[in-house]
């Protein structure tokens, strides 16, 4: 039995850097694993919250349930399970569905790096809607939440047909435009596919996925008994000269209504976003300038603003842009209350801008807005409409921005003197 060694570490760290790296890796892996689980669970947890909004629920849960746009947690609330949401009725459903769509801002100036970072596509004319396939059926809802069609489709889980496209209770959500004349759903974005959320994916990825997955299911096939409407992926282009040209002038099977610009790196962000832009002119859209209920362009531009506390009038943006104020007596007299959507005409004084930012408007009260309206107008819409009437952003402006960008990429020309 020999004596026992008792050497202790001397002037050295007890943990080697290698051990530290190992531990940091483990920590990172643990964190990512728990994030991945959290994501998987979230997909379901909002189901639970929403379902609890039946009468017998704990009010505490209910308050967490309503997804709120103003909070920084959109990504979580947007993981809401649509199959449950389809059971919603009435205003609750309208509100919820309206909030699930990504709403483009209107293009009031040209973003940087169009040719590098953006896609362009020709927006089909028609109703923007949310198509949800689940539990053997497919439902499309327009922006205000009301049902457009209820039908069987070849989308995953979209029809009661055995062995078709995956498990019966897997579901998909598509962002579409329904084009009346050829009765086709043109898909402009993919939000969930076979139960997997694409909210957190870049547009680049979603578009790629949309093009490759949609065809696989047979959803692009002509209508049949189990597939009432045809789906079609809208072609998209890199927003360089030729892409812009193709989208703007190219011949497509549908009637165009302006151009949509998608930032490639943007996630599916519900509500208004500056990372998707809509632009229109007379030659690619019938509806550049808003029409009234009779389909005619009114003499004056009409806008809808939301009334807030103390008479403040704001846009639907987040944060809202204040436009004007109503005096308290008038509010009282007209029976308006905070939250009301109010219609105004823009008078001859027009909109005054300083350094490209809105400063003052000449507004004329015309009345309370149509009840079908869920939101006020956005700032960019008001500005775009105003510009369209006065000094529109032309397609040439877009093209020249792009060509300018390209020139910058080239090495500068050297001028020799003498």
């Amino acid at each position, binding site marked *: 039995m020999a*004596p026992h060694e008792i050497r202790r570490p001397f002037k050295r760290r007890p943990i080697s*850097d*290698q051990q530290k790296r190992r531990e940091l890796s483990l920590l*990172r892996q643990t964190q990512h694993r728990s994030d*991945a689980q959290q994501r998987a*669970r979230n997909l379901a947890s909002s189901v639970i919250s929403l379902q609890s909004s039946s009468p017998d629920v704990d009010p505490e849960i209910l308050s967490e349930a309503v997804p709120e746009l103003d909070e920084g947690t959109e990504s979580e609330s947007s993981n809401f399970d649509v199959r449950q949401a389809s059971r919603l009725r009435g205003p609750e459903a309208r509100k919820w569905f309206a909030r699930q769509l990504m709403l483009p801002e209107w293009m009031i100036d040209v973003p940087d790096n169009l040719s590098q970072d953006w896609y362009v596509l020709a927006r089909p004319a028609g109703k923007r809607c949310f198509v949800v396939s689940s539990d053997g059926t497919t439902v499309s809802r327009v922006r205000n939440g009301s049902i457009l069609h209820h039908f069987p489709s070849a989308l995953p889980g979209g029809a009661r047909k055995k062995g078709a496209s995956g*498990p019966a209770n897997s579901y998909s959500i598509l962002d579409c435009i329904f084009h009346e004349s050829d009765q086709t759903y043109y898909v402009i974005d993919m939000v969930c596919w076979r*139960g997997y959320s694409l909210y957190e994916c870049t547009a680049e990825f979603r578009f790629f996925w949309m093009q490759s997955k949609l065809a696989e299911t047979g959803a692009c096939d002509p209508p049949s008994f189990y597939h009432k409407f045809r789906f079609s992926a809208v072609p998209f282009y890199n927003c360089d000269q030729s892409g812009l040209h193709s989208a703007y002038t190219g011949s497509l099977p549908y009637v165009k209504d302006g151009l949509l610009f998608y930032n490639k790196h943007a996630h599916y962000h519900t509500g208004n976003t500056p990372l998707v832009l809509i632009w229109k002119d007379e030659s690619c859209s019938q509806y550049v300038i808003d029409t009234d209920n009779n389909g005619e362009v009114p003499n004056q531009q009409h806008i809808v603003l939301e009334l807030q506390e103390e008479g403040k009038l704001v846009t639907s943006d987040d944060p809202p842009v204040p436009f004007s104020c109503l005096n308290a007596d008038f509010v009282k007299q007209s029976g308006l209350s905070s939250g009301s959507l109010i219609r105004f005409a823009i008078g001859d004084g027009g909109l005054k801008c300083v350094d490209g930012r809105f400063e003052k408007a000449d507004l004329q009260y015309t009345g309370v807005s149509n009840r079908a309206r869920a939101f006020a107008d956005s700032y960019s819409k008001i500005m775009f409409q105003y510009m369209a009437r006065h000094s529109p952003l032309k397609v040439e402006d877009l093209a020249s921005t792009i060509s300018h960008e390209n020139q910058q990429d080239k090495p500068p020309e050297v001028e020799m003197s003498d």
Partner: protein
Amino acid sequence: MAMEVTQLLINAQSIDGTVRKHAEESLKQFQEQNLAGFLLSLAGELANDEKPVDSRKLAGLVLKNALDAKEQHRKYELVQRWLALDMSTKSQIRAFLLKTLSAPVPDVRSTASQVIAKVAGIELPQKQWPELIVSLLSNIHQLPAHVKQATLETLGYLCEEVSPDVVEQEHVNKILTAVVQGMNAAEGNNDVRLAATRALYMALGFAQANFNNDMERDYIMRVVCEATLSPEVKIRQAAFECLVSIASTYYEKLAHYMQDIFNITAKAVREDDESVALQAIEFWSSICDEEIDILEEYGGEFAGDSDVPCFYFTKQALPGLVPLLLETLLKQEEDQDLDEGAWNIAMAGGTCLGLVARAVGDDIVPHVMPFIEEKISKPDWREREAATYAFGSILEGPSADKLMAIVNAALTFMLNALTNDPSNHVKDTTAWTLGRIFEFLHGSTIETPIITQANCQQIITVLIQSMNDAPNVAEKACGALYFLAQGYEDIGPNSPLTPFFQEIIQSLLAVAHREDATESRLRTAAYEALNEVVRCSTDETSTMVLQLVPVIMLELHNTLEGEKLSLDEREKQNELQGLLCGCLQVIIQKLGSEPTKSAFMQYADQMMGLFLRVFGCRSATAHEEAMLAIGALAYAAGPNFAKYMPEFYKYLEMGLQNFEEYQVCAVTVGVVGDICRALEDKILPYCDGIMTQLLKDLSSNQLHRSVKPPIFSCFGDIALAIGEDFDKYWRYSMPMLQSAAELSAHSSGADDEMTEYTNSLRNGILEAYSGIFQGFKNSPKTQLLIPFAPHILQFLDSIYMEKDMDEVVMKTAIGVLGDLADTLGSHVGGLIQQSVSSKEFLNECLSSEDHTIKEAAEWAKHAITRAISV
């Protein structure tokens, strides 16, 4: 036959290779053909006094190796084979062994002692050879000295081999009585006394009951203390070893003896042979270890109900102990900083002083300061070094408030000494002390910073200069820079190091390239500092970190080009590859997310190519580092990582097959998880191979057990990635999970280490369940899981009832309850309602202070509400 064995054993030690090889093969053949005969003739050889000593010793050794092995599975096989032998063979072997204890040759007796202990290690737990202890102890007093010595030695080995719970208390008492009597001063024979003292060291773990009895404890302690005064140095050393072991095993029983022990140890430290003095210092180091642990568990507050109270022995001993340790600091050896293996009284004393500072905190400062002040400027380097070391060693323990003024006053002095002191020894310790200043008194938690705008430049300049000093000094300077950078870990967007960043990186690279960089671990220290500087860097310097990527890649590339290296050169090359892969790993983690990600990813292809070549070098360390780096890269690359899979896959598989170097296997399992999250369902084509390997790993008894929990977690990662496609593996993985769950539900309690392992196993199993449930969600294949629900709920209930789960398990477990409810819904509503987990356990988690547990519990609650309401 017997004749033959003698010759074989002698031939097996022949210097002639052919003869030796032939003999070894014959022995092996003999063993395979007739194990009983083989073992019996070995025992006979060992016992036969007429045989040559060499063949007897080797016979004993071969016999011992036929009973035990290092690898668990081999050991298990050997044990089973021994137990299967017929009783008469075993009895004869036992008799031969006991007889050998009376052999006149000491080595032969000692070999027999060890073999007896091995046999006892197998048989006593099986209640076989029950008469062994009694027969060893009967008439021990009448035995001739050499037999008594061998018997005591046997008892010592026996205590080392056998767990205390298989020996009856009556036998324990007899063993201890014999041993302690053998140690007594009345024992005239030194060999006997030494054997008894060493046997006591082994037997201390058996003495729990005896240490609880005041009289018996007093007796043991008295005999041990007396033995420390024996005229024989080996006995004194062995007696102090006993005291060291008692310090940690019976800390709470020592109050009564501390005054005497202090006197004995002080005398030994000052006057005795170094081998004894080192043990005496180690006694105090062990006491400090205990008190540091106890005080850490109190969290700084005395809690009346804690198991072992702190007796503050160190604090009480301070006035005598500190001067004693300070004296040792002056006994440095000239070249101790150059010799990796050095360990001497000055080093032991210095280490102990550092532990004392941690155990007593502020109180140590006034005891040490006069020594430092008196000696720090003395002409003799020994005094300056000792003073500097003393200063460095008290920097951990006392509060920042207590130290701040002293450190601020000393900083300039230290920087000056590091530049100008003529002694290498003093500079080494000064650089180390600066490192400790930065480690403990610099960082976001310190209110008034030591490093300011005024002195930052000077500090960095001095450290960088010292990197050109001798390798041992340069190594410590790199270490100091490591902690300097670490202190700015959470500095925010602007780091004071930014202006110096480029210079620091350049200098560290230059140090790493010094020709003598392999001395004193200098190169390792340089890369470690580089890593920490990168880890703690801010966005301001990310372009410079990015520029480092091609530099490190080129270096790694160069290591792969070397040809025809000697074994030693290859080893150094592999070590360097490990360091460079480690460095790249740190950089990947730093740059692999936006906004630097896209610029960084341009190097990904090349980097991956290099890592794959590193795998080709077949060095465990480099392999592990490259694998970790790839895990980080996979996370950065996301789904794009798919393009590397065809080439990378075989190394992944190789890693999973590496049982021997289990660290490699463990990190590979972790990387599989990374890849699952990066590729999601694109990993599917590789899953058959991966799952096959993981299942093999789990059923192997060769693989280190620590790898098994992460393998279960990895099942979860895979299931989450491929969703319902996991149904292919469900048939194999569920039963494995189930049996592991059963095992881990009740197997805890033995000791802290076992409880910790059990909890990590539970966590792995639960993570697997979570991943599988979430992966199967919304698929008709959830049907497959329904039959497992009762078992899983039972598992959750049982770990709740055991009351020994840690917080990690608690969170995972309550999450699984939610996952089960979420995925299986109304199918299991009734079952869930019957489970304890859904009531008491859930409520406990809901009121947890740990918000991650609470969050998981709230989620589970919602999921359950839904499952039972539908």
